[in-house]
């Protein structure tokens, strides 16, 4: 037992750090530092830089273009991405549909889609949730009806992140309406440029546009776009959930946020002293730091087990719960730190090119919208209530 990273891992970490420092485009770096929105082009540019280095899909097997890194190396890579504030690669291709195609797709699908995911020729999004089925995913109603060599898809998906950027969507659709809920579902790949697809933005309470509702009206999809077997989609969806949640605790970016909190608490004044000197606020920071330490090493326990070849289990559910709670806690402390300057809201200031004086300190503008936005993290990717149901059943046997 030990908490140390090996020399090789340390060297790997430095390699990642150097790469991130030397290869993040200055346009992106400027936006990150100013906490402005990244565009689709920014994400694509960054994806291609990682692709060029061979690092875009660390978790993939080497034969498909992965890195062959150990789980611990993948963790270090994720942590450094987060710490540096570099964008994460959009997960829908690389982390989600990619592994499903690898595992369950046919050779044609593998040959066609996987390279395009790696190179970012296709931007993907995920069609799971529907307006009527939130936590109860298996009650989904979007139908795919067989018509010759095609499926005809009708229905609607909601909370579809990046649908407005995407070329492809992977969908759970109902192919057998007579079967019980979880049976009768298929896993279908749909071209977003097909006619009959309508993407409508959903503005969230922070004023941002990340998610959409996607409408399908008689959208025709070749049956060759079916992954695996018809009516077996639920199996693939469950397989995918495990991949979706790797790194979900986002240790690196949480450490970055905590550092930012400390910087702000050093800069903010309270009654003539730095806010960080105020015992109550200092305690809150300390508690967050300790909780983050507990979260980090709980994740490392799982990573270390994976490093020794053990298959990850239900610890992802625990990490999802605690990771989202921590993100929310730190973002709450961030707005608490800035007092009255949490109030001003200048949406334009989040766009690149805005170069007016900030209202109040330059770190303040984004914090309240970020706090509002982070409320999503205990809702999405399986709400924390669903995570608790899962742990209760699968781990505790209740």
């Amino acid at each position, binding site marked *: 037992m030990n908490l140390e990273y090996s020399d090789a891992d340390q060297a790997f970490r430095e390699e990642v750090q150097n790469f991130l420092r030397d290869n993040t485009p200055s346009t992106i770096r400027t936006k990150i530092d100013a906490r402005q929105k990244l565009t689709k082009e920014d994400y694509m540019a960054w994806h291609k830089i990682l692709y060029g280095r061979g690092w875009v899909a660390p978790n993939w097997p080497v034969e498909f273009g992965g890195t062959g890194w150990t789980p611990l190396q993948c963790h270090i890579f994720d942590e450094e991405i987060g710490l540096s504030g570099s964008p994460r690669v959009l997960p829908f291709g690389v982390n989600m549909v990619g592994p499903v195609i690898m595992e369950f797709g046919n050779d044609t699908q593998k040959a066609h889609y996987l390279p395009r995911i790696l190179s970012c020729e296709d931007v993907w999004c995920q069609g799971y949730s529907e307006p009527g089925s939130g*936590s109860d995913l298996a009650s989904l109603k979007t139908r795919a009806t067989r018509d010759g060599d095609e499926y005809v898809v009708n229905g609607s998906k909601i909370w579809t992140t990046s649908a407005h950027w995407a070329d492809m969507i992977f969908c759970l659709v109902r192919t057998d309406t007579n079967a019980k809920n979880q049976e009768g579902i298929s896993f279908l790949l749909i071209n977003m440029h097909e006619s009959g697809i309508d993407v409508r933005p959903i*503005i969230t309470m922070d004023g941002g546009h990340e998610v959409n509702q996607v409408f399908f009206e008689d959208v025709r999809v070749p049956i060759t776009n079916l992954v695996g077997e018809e009516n077996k989609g639920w199996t693939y969806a469950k397989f995918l959930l495990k991949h979706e949640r790797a790194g979900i605790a986002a240790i690196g970016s949480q450490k970055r946020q905590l550092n930012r909190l400390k910087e702000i608490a050093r800069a903010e*004044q309270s*009654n*003539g002293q730095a*806010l960080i000197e105020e015992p109550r606020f200092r305690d809150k920071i300390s508690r967050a730091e300790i909780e983050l330490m507990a979260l980090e090493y709980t994740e490392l326990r799982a990573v270390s087990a994976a490093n020794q070849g053990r298959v990850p289990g239900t610890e992802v559910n625990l990490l999802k719960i605690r990771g989202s709670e921590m993100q929310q806690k730190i973002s709450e402390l961030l707005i608490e730190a800035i007092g009255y300057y949490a*109030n001003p809201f200048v949406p334009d200031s989040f766009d690149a090119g805005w170069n007016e004086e900030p*209202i109040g300190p330059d770190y303040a503008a984004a914090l309240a919208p970020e706090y509002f936005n982070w409320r999503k993290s205990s*809702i999405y990717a399986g709400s924390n209530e669903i995570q608790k149901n899962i742990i209760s059943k699968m781990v505790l046997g209740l």
Partner: protein
Amino acid sequence: MNFSLSDEQKLLKDSVDRFVAERYGLDARRTLIASEDGYGRKNWKTFAELGWLAIPFSDASGGLGGGPIEVMVLMEAFGRGLVVEPFISTILMGATLVETLGDKEQKAAIIPPVVRGEKLISFAHVEAQSRFTLSDVITTASTDGNGYRISGHKAVVFGGDSANQLIVSARTSGNQRDEDGISLFLVDAEAKGITRRSYGTVDGLRAAEITLSNVLVGPETMLGKEGNSFAGIESVVDGATAAVCAEAVGVMDSLQEQTLEHLKTREQFGLKLGKFQALQHRSVDMFVACQEARTMMYVATLSLNKPRADRIRAVSAAKSHIGQAGRLVGQEAVQLHGGMGMTDELAVGHYFKRLTMIDTLFGNTDHHLERFAATVHG
């Protein structure tokens, strides 16, 4: 010991509840926020006609002689409706400072037009470094002939964008956080040397950063005695603090109702959400928080006219308590709504944002915990 409204207060409550129910749908509010003024001039005129703007002022000043309870009744309803009109900034802060510290001429000049809805006044007090310390003022007013020249920067002045007049606090003596040496000046918002930078807030209000650069004012603009305004500021801010506690209670009750409605409607796994025991118990926690917040609203409101230490004890206890209760109710309301709770389309997010920002007004939970402890334990 009595927690019932008088018959007159009940009439007031009916009237404001009706206004909010009929005029303050989410869409109407959106339109107001997007308008140039950022609030409803017609609404404000209605407030004046219904006498609401006159409530806190004495008969002698041209008011209706109402007290903290009437203000509480209004503010609770304003919370339920997420009303954006500048009632706190103009009535409870600006004009109430004039009522508290002004001389006869100043009251006569200001309160009647305010009550008629013709004049807006904001209190330009908070500064970038001051956080919640009311005595932390570095804006200075130095004598110049009979008058003064004021220079400094005032931060997040609510209603400061539309105000016709500003009450500016400035230091005429003393050090940065001394209670002595703070003076107040009634300044025309368009006066030479004043720069206003207006903006919206995350919860749909308007505010401004106000820079004063050698603004020349006459001696007649001084509100209260030179260097002696702190006690007045403190009592007015305590009144406004109790008022936002009432607003918070209105917001919280509405969030609780919206959430219950959602739980009774939305189905998952073949059951109404409200049948899941974990959500039931969390709804009860929200209910308890709302009930206790209401209690503390009463305690603060009914202590405003007590001696200073009693007033501080009650107001700070209430603001601290409601800050925590509000966090629970707001966060749970969003969570129990699921994805829909995150959208701009549904009301719940707007209520959540207002509740979140109320915690930053006049001192957050921790600030008032400290103030309570310092008063109680010495």
